[in-house]
């Protein structure tokens, strides 16, 4: 059995015990090893700002790794919450980037989790005018700053 199939079975079993009627599908659209949970009652599984969904994904990965140490990290989504949220925060980041380009002044985005920060960095990686910057891992609050890219790739602006 492939790790993603084992994860699908484990997730279905866990949610069944918790009393949720779900259909767990292998999500092939994201390009990652992912599972999509389809349910009539997504809110309790997503939680406030996706925190419970993060817990679900974390616990599933702990179990899969305990069984199959070589398994890749598996992304879990509930009713396409993550993809919709990703679309929303990239739209917001694009609006901030447009303001940075207009004003020339750097701006800091709202705090994000590590997955979101990575997504934003990747989103702007090849942008001709915008450079992204994050504080070191040890920083307590990790926000991304958008700044103007000078010719040659160096940071500019304030």
């Amino acid at each position, binding site marked *: 059995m492939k790790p993603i199939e084992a994860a699908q079975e484990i997730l279905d079993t*866990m949610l069944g*015990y918790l009393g*949720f009627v779900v259909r767990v599908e292998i999500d092939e659209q994201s390009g990652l090893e992912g599972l999509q949970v389809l349910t009539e009652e997504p809110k*309790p599984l997503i939680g406030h700002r996706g925190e419970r969904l993060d817990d*679900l994904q*974390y*616990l599933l990965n*702990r179990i899969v790794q*305990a069984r199959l140490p070589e398994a890749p990290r598996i992304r879990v989504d509930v009713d396409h919450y993550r993809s919709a949220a990703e679309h929303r925060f990239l739209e917001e980041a694009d609006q901030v980037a447009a303001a940075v380009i207009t004003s020339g002044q750097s701006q800091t985005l709202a705090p994000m989790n590590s997955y979101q920060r990575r997504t934003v960095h990747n989103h702007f990686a090849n942008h001709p005018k915008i450079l992204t910057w994050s504080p070191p891992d040890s920083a307590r609050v990790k926000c991304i700053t958008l700044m103007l890219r000078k010719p040659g790739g160096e940071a500019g602006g304030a």
Partner: protein
Amino acid sequence: MEAPLAIQEFLEYVVAQLIQHPENAGVLHRFEGDRHEFRIRLHPEDIGRVIGKNGSTISAIRSLVTAAAMKNHLRVDVEIEDRGDRR
């Protein structure tokens, strides 16, 4: 299936996936007042596996149990028991 029993089975299932001494593990359920208490008994070597780094694994377990409890209008506690000590 009755919700508290289902939560107990969820805990038994999840814990069994994480530990290496299942013969020394169990989940006890007690209903007191208006709260359902689930106490996870583990071999000492398995306690860290269930608590996880910075408590992240037990925190995720509690979060999911809370989702089931809220759905069924239950009040629940999940504790790890270690030779009479509770965590």
